[in-house]
Every structure is written in C-alpha cells, then in structure tokens.
C-alpha cells in the first residue's frame, strides 16, 4: 500500500516538474494569440531563454538572476517578432519560423563563445531552490521520500507557474488592459475606432509572450535539469503552443493541457524506472500519443480569437 502511494506521489511530482516549463510558455502563447498575433516562435524563445537562464545562473551564481535573464532574453525575441509582425506587417508564421532558427542559433553561437566551443553550458550549481524543503526530512514535519515530499517539495518555478496562471487569467479577464488585449484580438478595427492603439497592445502582448517563453526555458535548464544543452528544449515550445490551442486560448485551459502532457511524461519516467519490458523509444512516444488522443477526444471544437493571424493596418482598405 505504502509503495503504491509512494509511486503515485512520484508520478504527481514528476508531472508537476515537467509541466512547469510548458505552463510558462503556454501562458505566453495565450497572451500573444489573444491579441491576435500568432507566435510559432515560442520554441526559439524558450530555447534562448533556457540558455540565457543557465549561462547567467552559472556566471552570476544566482538562480534568480538566471531566471530574470532568461525572461529578458525571451522578451528580446518577442520584441523582434513584434517589430516584424506589427510594424512591418510580416506574415506571422514566417516570422515565427525565423525566430525558431534565430533563437536556437544565437543561443548555440553565444554558448560556443562562452563555454569553449561547447554547445552546452557547464553544470549550474545554484539551481532554483525548493522553498518548502525545510518541511521534509529526518525529524521534520514530513519524512523524506514520502508522498508529501514527492508531491510538494518542488522547485520554486512550479509554484510561480501556478501563480502566473491565476495572474494572467485575472489580468486578461478582470482588468482594463486585459479587456483591450482581447478586443484587439477579436476585432482590431472596432478597437481602433474607440481610440485603442492596436499597435501598442500587440507589441506589449508579443513581448510578454517572449518573456513567458523565456521563463519556460529557464524552468527547464535551471530547475528540471541543471544545465542547458542543445537538445534540452527539442519541441517543448511546440507542445506548449498545442496546449494553448487545446486549452481554448484560456490560461486555465492551457494549464490543464500542460498538466496532462506532464502526467504522461511522469508516467513514462515511472514505467522506465520500473523496468517495464517495453522499448524506451516506445515509452518516449507515450506523452505525445496520450496527449493527442486525450485532447482530441475531449476538447472538441475550439474557437480561436477572430482576428488571429490577420494583419491590421490603420486606415487600410
């Protein structure tokens, strides 16, 4: 019985850990797409954030500074995407693809300069802390490696991610700014006739999406693992993008979709650790297959913001 509870605790814990980077990035996706700008470049922004976070945490020996640098790095690429898509009315998908290459390429380029030609950073000693660690262990409130420890003794990024879901939801649905973002994503012409600056709103939203994708990258490189490597992100940005769509462009929906993917990942690791006689490649497929099957089966038709991907030009006819 104890073993089963412990196993469940292990799966929940891994779920939380692996969901966190996706949650951040997915929130970024929600913000930008709610304003009507598609950001397929989340992968590249996450990639760059993962590198910037690990490198900064390594050199400054401060994980929080690492987190900040990751967010700013992501935001930088968000700015580039905004300049291309909003100011120059570029095709948003094309700009996003370019940013995927540029984000990854520039991260590797800087990595080779800073780390002696290596496409990975050195191990980060000062990782993101586990804020509730003091509750667990010999003679503490909960024993170590128990259910409570496995579930609740997590990195700070996990708690931040959950708080962010609430904050983004609150801002989008309860504040003036959020209402304007959503209005711009649905009907920019209407917003424009009411004196709302579509350009400013979209710049803000796209930059914020980069900010969150950067956080997502760092949540990977200095929390889940302790270094950046060139295969670390490999598709997580796209998974986050898909989670945002499955989550119907809502923060809470994206959270559920990310958790589902994380759970599938946790299950994969659990089965692997148990030594189930299944090829590891098949196990590694599991998260993707489960996610697609469950989400396609459950979610049904989704309605994106009406003006998504459409170029808005003032006074354009």
């Amino acid at each position, binding site marked *: 019985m104890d073993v089963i509870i412990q196993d469940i605790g292990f799966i929940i814990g891994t779920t939380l850990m692996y969901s966190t980077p996706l949650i951040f990035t997915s929130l970024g996706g929600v913000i930008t797409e709610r304003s009507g700008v598609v950001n397929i470049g989340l992968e590249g922004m996450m990639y760059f954030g993962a590198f910037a976070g690990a490198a900064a945490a390594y050199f400054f020996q401060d994980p929080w500074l690492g987190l900040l640098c990751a967010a700013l790095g992501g935001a930088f690429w968000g700015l580039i995407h905004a300049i291309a898509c909003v100011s120059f009315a570029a095709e948003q998908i094309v700009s996003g693809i370019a940013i995927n290459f540029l984000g990854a390429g520039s991260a590797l380029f800087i990595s080779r300069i800073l780390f002696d030609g290596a496409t990975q950073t050195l191990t980060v000693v000062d990782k993101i802390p586990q804020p509730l660690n003091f509750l667990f262990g010999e003679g503490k409130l909960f024993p170590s490696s128990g259910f409570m420890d496995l579930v609740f003794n997590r990195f700070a990024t996990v708690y931040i991610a959950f708080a962010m879901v609430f904050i983004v939801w609150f801002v989008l649905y*309860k*504040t*003036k*700014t959020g*209402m*304007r973002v*959503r*209005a711009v994503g*649905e*009907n920019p*012409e*209407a*917003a*424009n*006739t*009411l*004196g*709302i600056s579509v350009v400013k709103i979209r710049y803000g939203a796209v930059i914020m999406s980069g900010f969150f994708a950067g956080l997502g990258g760092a949540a990977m490189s200095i929390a889940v693992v302790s270094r950046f490597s060139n295969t670390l992100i490999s598709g997580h940005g796209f998974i986050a993008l898909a989670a945002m769509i499955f989550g119907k462009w809502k923060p809470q929906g994206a959270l559920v979709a990310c958790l589902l993917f994380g759970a599938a990942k946790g299950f994969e690791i659990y089965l692997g650790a148990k030594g189930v006689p299944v090829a590891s490649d098949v196990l590694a497929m599991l998260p993707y297959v489960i996610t697609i099957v469950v989400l396609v089966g459950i979610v049904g038709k989704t309605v994106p913001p*009406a003006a998504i991907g459409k170029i808005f030009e003032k*006074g354009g006819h």
Partner: protein
Amino acid sequence: MSGITKKFGDFTANQNINLTVHRGEVHALLGENGAGKTTLMNVLYGLYKPTEGTIKVNGKPLQVSDPNVAIANGIGMVHQHFMLVDPFTVTENIILGNEPTKTFGVLDLQRAEEEVRQLSQTYGLHVEATAKIQDLSVGSQQRVEILKTLYRGAQILILDEPTAVLTPQEIQELANIIRNLTKAGKSIIIITHKLNEIKQVADYCTIIRRGAHIDTVQVNEVSEDDLAAKMVGREVSFKVAKKQRERGDKVLEIRGLEVEDSRGITAVNGLDLDLYQGEILGIAGIDGNGQKELIEALTGLTKVRSGVVKVRDKEVTNRTPGEMINKHRVAHIPEDRQKRGLIFEFDIAENMVLEKYNVPPFSRWFTLLWDKIYQNADLLVKKFDIRPQDSRVLARALSGGNQQKMIIAREVSNDPELLIAAQPTRGLDVGAIEYVHQSLVEQRDAGKGVLLISFELDEIINVSDRIAVIYEGEIVGILDAEGVDEKSVGLMMAGGSA
C-alpha cells in the same frame, strides 16, 4: 463642414462639399451608391484626412486627425458595418476604450452595467446589459452601437445607412429612438438613399451626386419626387443604338424565389420574373435590395430557400455553378471582376478556359493541351480587341476595361442561353462602358436573354428593353424602357409608389 474635398489618388470622392447641422436637428445625406456620403462622414469622424476644407464644431475650428479627437468633441459614428466585439457582452462593448476601473486597472463591471442600464432607459434604447453581442439581433446590435456613442458623450451622431440591415419593425423603432435623441438636444446625421425614411425622420437633407454637393433642402418643403430627381440627376449620356427587338421564347422563369443572405436574413423575398430571348431585362434597384443574392441563386453560387428557377423550361433550382455554366448555359459577368471574374496570377489564356479547361479540345486524359488553350486565347484576344494582344500576359497587368473585355470574351464564347451581367461597367471609363453596352446589345440581337443588374439607373434605362425594379427582395414594377420616366423609376427604387 465647409469646402471639404477628399481625393484618393486621382479619384475625387468629395468635391467642395458644405454641410451645416444644427443642434437637435436630423440631417439626411442623400445620394446614390458611391456618391461620397460615407467618405464625407469618415472625414468628419477622423478616419480620413480631408485634402481640403475645414470642420467647425460649435463654431470652433477643429482638426479631426483621428477618431479620438472626434469622440472628445462629441462626435459619434455608427458604422454601416458594426464595430462590435462579438464574444463580448453589451456592457464590455460599450465601455471598451473608456473603462471604469477600481484600483490597479481592475474593471468595475458593476458600475459599468449600471451606467449602461441608465443610458438605455434614458433614451429608450432597450438592450440587456449582460447579453453577448453574438446572441443579439441586428437591431439590438445597432442600439449597442448608438449607446456606445452616447456613453462617450456624443452630441452629434452619424448613422451610416442605419436601416439597410433592419426589419420594418426595427426601422420604426429606430425612428422613435432618433426622435428621443433629438428631444434630448442631440444632432443626427443620417446617411441614406431611402426617400421615405428621409421624409419620415429628417428635417433637412443634403444631396450629393458623384462627390459633388447638389443641394440642401428643408425636407417638408420638397416631395419625394424632387428628392429622387436631385439624387439621380439628369446626365448627358449617349444612347445605345438598338434595333427593334424580336422577343423569342422564354429563357428564364423565376417563381416565388426566396434567398437568404449570408447573415440568414431574407434578401430575395418571393421574387417572380420572366426573361425572353432577344431582350435585355434591366434590374433597377439600390444596392442591398437582394440583387446579390438573386445573382448568386441564378448562378448556383448559393442555395435558395424556396421557389423555382427554370432556364428554357428546365428546372435548375439549386444546381451547382458547374451545371449552370456547362449544362444550362448560363453565363455570368460577375460584379467583382477581380475576385470572382478572374484569377489575377493566371495569364489571359488560362483565364479564358477557367470554365472549360477540363473538356476537349483543351484537355485530354489528365493533361492540358496548351497549344489549344493558347490558340483559343489568341483568337479571342483579336476578336474582342483585348490589349495588350498577348495571351501570356497576366490578368493583373490589364486595365479594368480590358479585364472586363476578357470576361465578356470568355462568357460570350461559351454561347450562352442566358447572360447575367452584374454591374458590368463598374469603375470603367467611358470608352469601355460603351464597349460593354454594345456587347450586351449584340448578345440580345443574337437571340440570347440578357439579365442586366446595375445600380446606375442611366445604364439600365439606356441598355434595357424592359426594366424590373427590385426593392427589398421583390420586383415592385416592370416597365418598358422606351420613354420611361427616370424620376418614377428612381422613386420606385427607393420604395415610393410610381
């Protein structure tokens, strides 16, 4: 507004227009489609910058550089196509851009809803403050748009074709609302081309024709006939030379046709019509009275709700466009030649076979026979004098007149039973217009049935043998074009009785 001129490139949309509106007055702007009414109002609302002219509000000169300036000076506009965010509630739409907030920019929706309820009570504009726009009727959406302007303190309200999308009951309601607003001291500018509405609600009326200011009149001193005459105008126009017509067999028979528009509103409402070989039947009417839907029903582009369409005594109701073209020989010169008539990135030869590329002699098995396709085009280019005379030129590179020649060449070379020409001379210069008119007459003389749909009354009267006037989806009268009185047709078009 005085001396307002607005040019788009070479095109003058407004030429030296003056407009004065007093407090508490309803002022109608009357003119045909494309006369420049909406352009003038967009200038007032700050969406366009005037090329010349000045605007004064309450005696104070004003540079309306963008809608914010207009709003701040008490000018509100209800656009013909509503500017609403569909998934938002009524209240959210009304406060957007001007939101009441608590601390930290948190929306105070309760206060907003209360304000909206109060506004809607004050002016008798009944809407549910918490309903979503997408669940509301068009009439309610319009009330939301009016509330939006009132919420921002508008003193001058511009209503752009407010009745175009409304049901008769909703139009009545709107008239009451307008009365309530003027009682409260608001001024209303109403853009319209419906004469009875002007007589019903407006105090003054300014008539614009082809971008120029024709007259400003006090509505109770003029008749609908006078207004129609001023709106349509009497222009010098060359008569199209026509031989005596010889009416043949019936080509097209329409009985009780009902078609919905894309919003699900009945656009063609029990329409009956007959067309015979060797005649041009002109459909006269103001844009938005069901012409578009009628054409789409006849060409198979949309499904009809009920009614029967027969071409040469064969029922063709709800056939596909392909069947209409190839089997029933219905040719169509579409209203929008750029979107529906041509593929811009294809060359002349490719455009010429859009309807028959898949049949001999242009294809065999799975391959196109390019030799034949280009031979076909070379022939047509010469015969119809399309310039440049090169089948390999892309459609986009041709002038509007030559693009229209291409379409006519293609449609006519299909040897149709029935030729539907929708606004065939829109945007063309005088020479091209003459060519198009002659082509239509040639088809008629060759014994085809020609259905001409146009918003230009001159064109209808000149080219047609018979004129059918369409109003609110019905044919309200059929007249012989010979010696017809332009004024009486204009009156029927606007819903008056002849």
